[in-house]
C-alpha cells in the first residue's frame, strides 16, 4: 500500500514549528481562538492528567476485592463515586488480566484512549504499526515490545471502535504484599493498563 511509504520520514521540527505558528497567528487574527485559553488547556492536559488516575484504581483493586468486583462490573459507577471526570471516559470497561488471560487495548480506526484515566496516548499507540498489527498478530507484537506470553495464555484484544473506553487491570506482582495504596500505585505503569506490559515489583 502506497501510504506505507509516507510515515517514517524525519520530521523537520523547524518547518512544523513555523507552519503551526503561522496557523496560530492567523487563528488569533481571525478571532477564532484565544491564546491564553489555548495555554491553559495545554497545561491541564499535559500536567494535570496522567496515568496516576488509572494507577490508583488498579492499586485499590489489588487491596480491596469488593472494589475490584465493582470496577469490573460497573466501572462507570465507580468513577462517579470516586469523582473521576473528564474527557474520553463516557463509558469505561475494565478488563482484568489473570493467569491464562491477557487483555490488550487498541483503536484500529483512529487512536481512542481513556484520556481522563491515562492522560494523552503515547505515539506508539497512535502509530499505524500498532493499530494495524496488534489485531492480526498480538502475541508477536507484544513479544517485540518486550512482553512474552505463554502460548496457552488467551489474548483478548479490545478494539475501541465505539465510545466505550477500555482499561486493563494488570496482575499484582509477587513481592508487593507489604505495600500500601500509594506505593502500589507508583508501580502501575501506563503501558500495563494498555496491556503491553506487566507490572513489576521494584
Amino acid at each position, binding site marked *: 500500500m502506497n501510504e506505507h511509504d509516507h510515515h517514517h520520514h524525519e520530521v523537520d521540527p523547524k518547518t512544523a514549528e513555523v507552519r503551526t505558528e503561522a496557523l496560530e497567528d492567523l487563528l488569533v487574527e481571525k478571532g477564532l481562538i484565544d491564546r491564553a485559553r489555548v495555554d491553559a488547556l495545554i497545561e491541564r492536559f*499535559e500536567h494535570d492528567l496522567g496515568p496516576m488516575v488509572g494507577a490508583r484504581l488498579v492499586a485499590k483493586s489489588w487491596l480491596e476485592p469488593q472494589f475490584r468486583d465493582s470496577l469490573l462490573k460497573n466501572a462507570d459507577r465507580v468513577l462517579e463515586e470516586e469523582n473521576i471526570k473528564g474527557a474520553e471516559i463516557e463509558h469505561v470497561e475494565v478488563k482484568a488480566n489473570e493467569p491464562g488471560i491477557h487483555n490488550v487495548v487498541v483503536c484500529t480506526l483512529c487512536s481512542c484512549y481513556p484520556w481522563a484515566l491515562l492522560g494523552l496516548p*503515547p505515539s506508539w499507540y497512535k502509530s499505524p504499526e500498532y493499530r494495524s498489527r496488534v489485531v492480526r498478530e498480538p502475541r508477536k507484537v507484544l513479544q517485540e515490545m518486550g512482553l512474552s506470553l505463554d502460548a496457552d495464555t488467551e489474548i483478548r484484544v479490545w478494539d475501541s471502535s465505539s465510545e466505550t473506553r477500555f482499561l486493563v487491570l494488570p496482575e499484582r506482582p509477587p513481592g508487593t504484599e507489604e505495600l500500601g495504596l500509594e506505593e502500589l500505585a507508583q508501580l502501575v505503569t501506563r503501558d500495563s493498563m494498555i496491556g503491553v506490559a506487566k507490572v513489576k515489583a521494584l
Partner: protein
Amino acid sequence: MSTNSRVHDIGGTQGWGEVPYDSNEPVFHNDWERRVFGLMFQVLPHTAKRPGEFRHALERLAPEDYFCPDGYYGRWRAAIEVLLDEYGHVDKVELDDLLGVQPGTSPGHRVAKIAEIPSENLPPDRLTRKPEHRTVRRELEESSRFQVGDRVVAMGNSGMGHTRLPEYVRRIPGTVVKIHPAEVLPDSTAHNLGERPQHVLCVAYHAKDLWGEAAEENVVINVDLYESYLEMETEPS
C-alpha cells in the same frame, strides 16, 4: 485479506514494521505538537461540532496528509486547515498565502469531499430523552434486537461515508459478548443526518475466523459495533 479502501481503516493490514515503542515517551515531543493540540479544541467549536465530524475530517485527508511526516499532530493540523476552509473561515487559497506555502499545496486542495449518504441507507431516527449534559449516550426504550450469545455478521455502511465498522470484521461471523449503553450513530451524525441512536454491541471474533488458519492460537478480538451494522448470522446452506 480485506481490501481496505479507507485510508484510516488499517486494522489487520500487512506490510508495516515494528511498533516504534518507547516506554518513556514525553506527552509532546516538540512545542508545535503542544500548540496543535491546544488549537484543535478551540477550532472545533467553530467547525466540526457533531460527533464523528472531526474524525471524518481526518479520514478524508489525502494519504500523504493522513500519514504525513509530521505524524499524529501533523495530521491534526492538516484537518484544522481543511475545516477552516470548509467552514468558510479561511479559504484554502488564502490559507496557502497566509501560511507562506506554495499555492495549491495545503491539504484542503486534495481532501476528499464529504460523501453524499442516502438517508435510506441509515436506520430510522428515533426520539430519545434529551441528556442533561453533552454526551453521545442515549437511553433507548426498545431493547436490542440481539442478545449476548447471538451469532452476528456486520455488513453495514460500505460506501465512502464515515463509519465505525472496521473493514476487517465485515462479513465475518462473531459472537455478541456484551451490550454497551446506546449512542448516537456516528455514520449519521458526522454527515449531519440526525442522531439515529443505536445499541452498541461488543462482538468477539476468533483470530482464525478473521485471518485464517495461520492466525495465532488463543486470540480473541473484540470489536464494538453499532446495532444497525449487524445482522443475525444465517446458517450456511
